[in-house]
């Protein structure tokens, strides 16, 4: 476990910034409880500071996980957000999409979000913007990238993709082994 290096901070923040924009400040500097980002076995964790300080007592190979796993650095050292970041993103998201109950399951199986399943969308969402995807009852289901801007979405035909899937809560079941580093091996 160690703090992120300059280049790593850059990658992580740029990715988060796509979803939360200026609100990133509130993530880093939380009013209620101080939190920090820590890297452990190529995974980035968002941890409460007191927990992090306690975790320093545990040796690196014994430490499995701490806090919330926000994402991981791939083998080629690119940063990828994982489903653990959902809660953080949902709380601070700038742009949201709501899924109709009929296509909730489709999204939760890892498919892209189609126009036919789009219930609501934050106005003025530009294309290629990170969006958090909610059910109609405001339960966060996952996140992705907007394929089209809000204006364009109105004119789309029902089978067109409006958001590219990145992560969804179904992964907790589908990719259970990937949740903790090294469990598969």
């Amino acid at each position, binding site marked *: *476990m*160690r*703090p992120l*290096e*300059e280049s790593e*901070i*850059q990658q992580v*923040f*740029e990715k988060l*910034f796509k979803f939360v*924009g*200026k609100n*990133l*400040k509130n993530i*880093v*500097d939380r009013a209620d409880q*101080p939190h*920090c*980002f*820590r890297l452990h076995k190529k995974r980035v964790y968002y941890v409460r*500071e007191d927990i*992090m*300080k306690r975790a*320093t007592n545990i040796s690196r190979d014994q430490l499995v996980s701490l806090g919330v796993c926000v994402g991981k650095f791939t083998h080629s050292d690119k940063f990828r957000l994982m489903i653990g970041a959902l809660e953080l993103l949902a709380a601070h998201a700038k742009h949201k999409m709501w899924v109709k109950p009929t296509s909730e399951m489709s999204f939760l199986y890892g498919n892209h979000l189609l126009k036919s399943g789009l219930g609501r969308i934050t*106005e*003025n969402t530009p294309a290629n913007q990170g969006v958090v995807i909610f059910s109609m009852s405001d339960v966060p289901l996952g996140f992705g990238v907007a394929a089209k801007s809000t204006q364009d979405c109105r004119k789309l035909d029902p089978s067109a993709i409006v958001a590219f899937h990145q992560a969804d809560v179904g992964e907790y079941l589908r990719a259970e082994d990937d949740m903790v580093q090294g469990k598969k091996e």
Partner: protein
Amino acid sequence: MTEDAGRLRVASALEATGAYDGPVDLDLGNLAASDPAPVDPDVFGRAPSDSATAAAISRGRDVLQRLVADLFTLPSEADVNGRYVELPAGATQFPRTKPLPPTEKPMTKWEKFAKEKGIKKRKRSKLVYDEQTDEWKRRHGYDRVKDADRIIIADAKMSDVPGKTEDPFTREERERRERVEKNQGKQLKNLQNAVATHGKHVLPPTLQMSAAPKKGVKALPLNGMKKQQIRDLTAQVAKSTASMAKYNAPIPGDEKIKTRGRRRQFDSVTDTGTERERAQGFIDKLVRREKDFTVDVNVAARKIQRAKEAENRSAKKAKLLEKDSGAGGKGGKHGKSAAGLKVKGMKGKKGKK
């Protein structure tokens, strides 16, 4: 030399046979001759050519003729098979192919003592039965029998006084250290004695490279260096060439030298203050770069429009209210609203019927 007209000049043997009369290194013992003069490019050519080859061959013949001529100057004996010459000892030094014959090693003090007393080395088994653990264990090395490091509890004597008697574990540690030091001293003394009686060459090659131990000199130069330090030094030396080892010819075994790179330094794990500061700085930069602070004109316009409409609405309402209050006062308003409710309620009832 001037020539007399009346005398017939007889050519010497060397001249007659065309032998080379320049300076030549001759080693009659090995039947070898070599011309140490630098190669003359005017004679032997600057590039390979037929004339150069011919010149080299003819020079070779001349030098060989010189060698043969010198051989004939040696005292010889006649024999049935021809003339015999005893060659002198060779002058050229050749590297030896076979290893040196074993030399007598200087004895250590213990070896001398053992020889005097007739003590012979006897073979001891590698494994020893350990009664405590009921296992066969090695006599020496890792996981050995009676390993002092593995004793967890030591018996105390009745006479031991807590605080005054030395802790048995520290005593063991101290005694071991002293034993090792004592033995190292003995080894050094043996080496010094060996150098005094036999000379430097009896030392192991690694010690010969450094200064030979002398009496009064406490430690050998390399002794102070740790294994890793010597390794690092080797690696450093291996790449200390003009090209910084970029164009070095591969040396067998060199690939095994592990160079230690610079270790990565990370920030303190628990110092969150500076970390947060740095993160804030980075976010500010990000916000500026992505222009997240700019106003979306459409959204702003819509908001202003909405605010204006709301204002108009409330102004209208206020105007109406004023009108109302001017006509019937406060009570009138209450009455009106009550009446409105009534009507609604009645409507509902109607619907049910």
